[in-house]
């Protein structure tokens, strides 16, 4: 089936070349970082995780979001998702590839990464995260490939594969739960020390992941003559709206706990994110515009998607989903991780601004993910056309 990636219209090759260019830029930036050290980034002693880990956190959600297709189709036998479930699985593969690349980019000593395996530490949440992420990657590769091969041969998938399909559902939940546990089990980081982090992560994941799949479907409809079907799209939109509302509700609960209890430690990070945190006469507020953009985009997107007339129009639907995806990226891929370090353990404030080199690596990893998803979707659509054609 891999041969399907080798034939395409000029636009396909131009798109791949475009992504390849950013991958090359990312690789060059990474060589610089590898030689000099992580001092090439904007991270510091006080804000010791930056864009890499926040992208990782967000993308784990995108990967987990694929389960919103797998679950209705395989558990509830929702047949409308039959054509697009494979898109969810392949998106999950690309997202996890990005996650792993971001982790590698963030390590001070990447050549020692295997120490996580060589010296397994069941105390560490990172140990479990490595297990579930790689497990979920394996499950999606296996299920996606076997089911697609069966489709190509126009036979039923082998029965044994369903064991792995069903297994992938709790794995999808586990990857984002364990990722939340990286944060919410740390004493002394008030913003992260909240039991609602895992549910909140899952809610935003189940909105952002499917939103990206809708965007992909709209693109594929134009460029590859692939129609996911209006009924399937509408169902996805319903899922997105509920998940997005839940995320906003959870964010609201964080505000209630912080501001009603009036405990300073519970308010600091929220103040820093949304209003600016005053400290010794200086107001630190470099994330405020991002967070209000998150709120406005999220509610705007929810309102748009919830309006039947609006979502009938492909362009409006695409814009709504893009707005939602960007909103939740701002929430989790920017705000959540960075605000956990403000203020630091000694109540000092350091702001983080990524460097150009760091942005280069970040864009390079994203381009790699888009490359992976493009190639996988090319295969999937190619097989569907072959079967139907």
């Amino acid at each position: 089936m891999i041969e399907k990636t080798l034939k395409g219209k000029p636009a396909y090759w131009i798109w791949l070349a475009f992504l390849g260019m950013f991958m090359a830029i990312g690789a060059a930036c990474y060589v610089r970082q590898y030689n000099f050290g992580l001092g090439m980034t904007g991270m510091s002693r006080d804000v010791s995780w930056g864009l890499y880990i926040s992208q990782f956190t967000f993308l784990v959600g995108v990967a987990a979001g694929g389960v919103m297709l797998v679950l209705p189709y395989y558990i509830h036998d929702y047949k409308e998702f039959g054509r697009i479930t494979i898109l969810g699985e392949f998106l999950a593969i690309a997202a996890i590839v990005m996650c792993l690349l971001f982790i590698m980019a963030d390590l001070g000593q990447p050549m020692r990464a295997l120490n996580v395996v060589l010296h397994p530490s069941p105390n560490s949440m990172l140990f479990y995260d490595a297990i579930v992420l790689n497990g979920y990657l394996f499950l999606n590769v296996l299920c996606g490939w076997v089911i697609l091969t069966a489709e190509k041969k126009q036979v039923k998938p082998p029965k044994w594969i369903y064991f792995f399909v069903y297994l992938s559902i709790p794995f999808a939940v586990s990857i984002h739960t364990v990722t939340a546990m990286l944060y919410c089990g740390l004493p002394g980081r008030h913003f992260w020390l909240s039991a609602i982090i895992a549910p909140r992560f899952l809610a935003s994941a189940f909105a952002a992941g499917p939103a990206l799949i809708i965007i992909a479907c709209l693109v594929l409809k134009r460029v590859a003559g692939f129609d996911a079907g209006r009924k399937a799209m509408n169902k996805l939109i319903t899922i997105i709206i509920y998940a997005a509302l839940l995320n906003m509700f959870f964010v609201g609960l964080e505000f209630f706990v912080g501001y009603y209890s009036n405990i300073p430690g519970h308010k600091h990070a929220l103040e820093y994110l949304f209003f600016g945190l005053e400290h010794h006469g200086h107001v630190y507020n470099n994330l405020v515009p991002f967070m209000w953009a998150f709120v406005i985009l999220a509610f705007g997107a929810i309102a748009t998607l919830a309006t039947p007339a609006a979502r009938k129009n492909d362009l409006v639907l695409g814009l709504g989903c893009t707005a939602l995806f960007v909103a939740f990226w701002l929430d989790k891929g920017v705000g959540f991780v960075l605000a956990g370090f403000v203020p630091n353990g000694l109540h000092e404030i350091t702001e983080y601004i990524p460097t150009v080199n760091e942005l280069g690596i970040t864009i390079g990893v994203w381009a790699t993910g888009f490359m992976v998803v493009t190639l996988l979707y090319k295969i999937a659509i190619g097989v569907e056309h072959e079967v139907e054609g």
Partner: protein
Amino acid sequence: MDEQRRKFLKIAGASVVAGIGAPAIIKLSASPAFASGHAAPAAGHAPAAAAHGAVEAAPKGVRLGMVIDMRKFTDKPEMLDGAISACIDAHNVPQFPDKKNEIKWLWKAPFENVFTDQSAYHSSKRIAETDFAVLCNHCDDPPCVRACPTQATFKVESTGIVAMDFHRCIGCRFCMAACPYGARSFNWQDPRPYIKKYNKEFPSRMKGVVEKCNFCAERLALGQEPACVEACKGTGAITFGDLNDPKSELRAVLDKEFTIQRKPTLGTKPSVFYIV
């Protein structure tokens, strides 16, 4: 330093290096009460194995700790600077000019930053103007050790020291997120050009690994006191010893003075105490 104390330190240090040092621990707590197996209730954590007089390692035998008497430092602030530079010289701690790259093992900070859950409202002039000594707390239940995915940071059970293996650290910085005390630093770049005075007795680090105070495990192994303790010698500013040994000088100070720990509500059980 009297001979007995010297011996104590040497044994404690040796067990740090050996990582096991079972007989050493027995000797270490070889006050008659311990050795006879009738461990006084005051010993609290006195382990069963030690009471048996067996050769087995006692997991909670020794818990090295420290009392920092800030009253002494208020009188002589330059003494704290001396302790800090002794630490820097002993451990090849690089001196970066910028805050972003800072590597800190022992440093100073205002009261309100060190004791973030104590009120600094209308604090006395002395407290407001004194810089407090800050270092790794060598917690009895260290969150950094819990978070480390490779056991590159670990608790030496025979001494309670929270140690680092610079060669195993992958530089994920999970420990830095986990430490509530800001005690850990990361080498964002090669630190070697920024080492002012190179001490050949202690390894320098490479880029991409985390480091922090090690309670001078390498000096204890040689029968020396920690560098900061030695720098304040004879003043009583820093008392170092075994928290679990009721006969230790450290316990004598703790029994006598009112002391506080940093963020005790987090359950990390810091081994560094302060007399404010």
